[in-house]
C-alpha cells in the first residue's frame, strides 16, 4: 500500500497534487489505538569516546487521531511506562528505573500530548506536543513519517531528540550525552 501511495504520489505530483493529498488523507482519517504488536519505542544515547547506549520501552499505550478535513487538527497521545525499560543489562535497567533516572515508583508514567501537527510533505509531519516526565513538562518535537496504511492499520515511523537534563535525568553527563534519540514505530488499529 505504501508503494502504491508513493506511486500515486509520483503521478499525482505531475497532475494535481492537492487531489492526491485529499484522497490519501481521507483514506487515513480516523481514530487509531496504538497496538503493542508491531510497535516499538527505542532510544539511543551517545557515549563519550564513541558508541551508544540502546534501550527500549516494552509497555506503552496511546491513540492517534487523523482529522479528515484538517491534518493540523490531528492528535497523538502516548503514555510510556518507564518501569518496562529494557537495555539487555539488568543492572542498567534497575538503575534507569530507580530515582537516579525515571523514578518509576513515584512517576510511573511518561506522557506525550500533541499540541500541533504540521504536515511537512505527502508522508511526513512535524508533531509538537507536551512531554511530561518526573513531574516536568516541556514542549518537544517529533517527526512522523507515514510508513503504511492497510485496511484499518496505520504505521508511523517517529523520530526525535529529547534533552534528558530538563526532566531531572541528567545523571551521567557528560559521559553519556544529554541528547536522547528516540526511534519509534507506532502501529495504530482503527477504532
Amino acid at each position, binding site marked *: 500500500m505504501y508503494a502504491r501511495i508513493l506511486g500515486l504520489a509520483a503521478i499525482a505530483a505531475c497532475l494535481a497534487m492537492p487531489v492526491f493529498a485529499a484522497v490519501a488523507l481521507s483514506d487515513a482519517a480516523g481514530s487509531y489505538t496504538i497496538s503493542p504488536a508491531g510497535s516499538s519505542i527505542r532510544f539511543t544515547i551517545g*557515549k*563519550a*569516546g564513541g*558508541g551508544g547506549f540502546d534501550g527500549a520501552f516494552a509497555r506503552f499505550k496511546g491513540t492517534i487521531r487523523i482529522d479528515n478535513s484538517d491534518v493540523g487538527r490531528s492528535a497523538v497521545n502516548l503514555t510510556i511506562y518507564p518501569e518496562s525499560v529494557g537495555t539487555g*543489562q539488568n*543492572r*542498567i535497567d*534497575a*538503575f534507569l528505573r*530507580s*530515582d*537516579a*533516572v525515571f523514578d518509576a515508583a513515584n512517576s510511573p508514567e511518561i506522557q506525550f500530548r500533541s499540541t500541533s501537527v504540521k504536515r511537512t510533505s505527502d508522508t511526513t509531519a512535524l508533531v509538537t506536543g507536551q512531554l511530561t516526565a518526573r513531574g516536568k513538562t516541556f514542549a518537544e518535537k517529533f517527526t512522523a513519517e507515514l510508513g503504511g496504511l492497510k485496511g484499518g492499520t496505520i504505521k508511523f515511523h517517529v523520530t526525535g531528540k529529547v534533552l534528558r537534563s530538563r526532566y531531572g535525568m541528567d*545523571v*551521567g553527563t*557528560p*559521559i553519556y550525552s544529554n541528547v536522547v534519540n528516540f526511534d519509534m514505530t507506532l502501529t495504530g488499529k482503527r477504532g
Partner: protein
Amino acid sequence: MITNNTNRYGWAAIALHWLIALIFIGQFALGFIMVRIESQRTAFELIQLHKSFGFLLLGLVTLRIAWRLGNAAPALPRSVGALERRAAPLAHFALYAFQLALPLSGWALVSVSMLEIPSMPFNLFVMPNLPLAMSDAAESFWTEAHWYLAYAGIALVVLHALAALRHHFWLRDSVLVRMITPSSDQEME
C-alpha cells in the same frame, strides 16, 4: 631541595609521598562508601569520582617510582637494627606494588565490565579501556581482586604508619621527621 640526598628526602619525594597517601586512604574510604550507599545516582557519581582519583593515583605513582629510581635513597639511621634493615625495603617494595596494583586492577575491572561505562577522569578526557575481554566472569574476578588488594593494601598502610610512629615516639630517631622536613642546602656537601 627538590631532590633527595643520601641522608634526607627532597621536597618532591615528600610531596609525592603525602599526596599519594592522602589519595590512597581517601580512595579506600570512597570505595567503601560508594558500594554501600543507597542512592543509585550518588553511587554512580561516587564511582566515577573513585575512577578519576584512581587514574590520578596511577599517574602520580608512576611519577613517584620514576623519581625513586632516578634519585638517591636516603640511608636508614645507624640505630636501625639488622632485622628492620632487611624488612624495610621489602615493606617499601610491597607498598609500591600495592600503589600500582590497586589502580591497575580497578582499570581492569572497568575495562572488562559488561556495563561498558566509559572512564572520563574528572570529565576531562576519555581514558581508553585496557585490552581485556569483557565478560561477567572477568568482571567478578577483577572486582574480587580489587577488593582483596584494597584491604591488604590498607592493612600494609596501617602497618607502615605504626612503624613510622614507633620510630618517632619510641625509638626517637629521624625516620618520620625526614619524611616531613625536606633536605636543605646546608646539608649538601
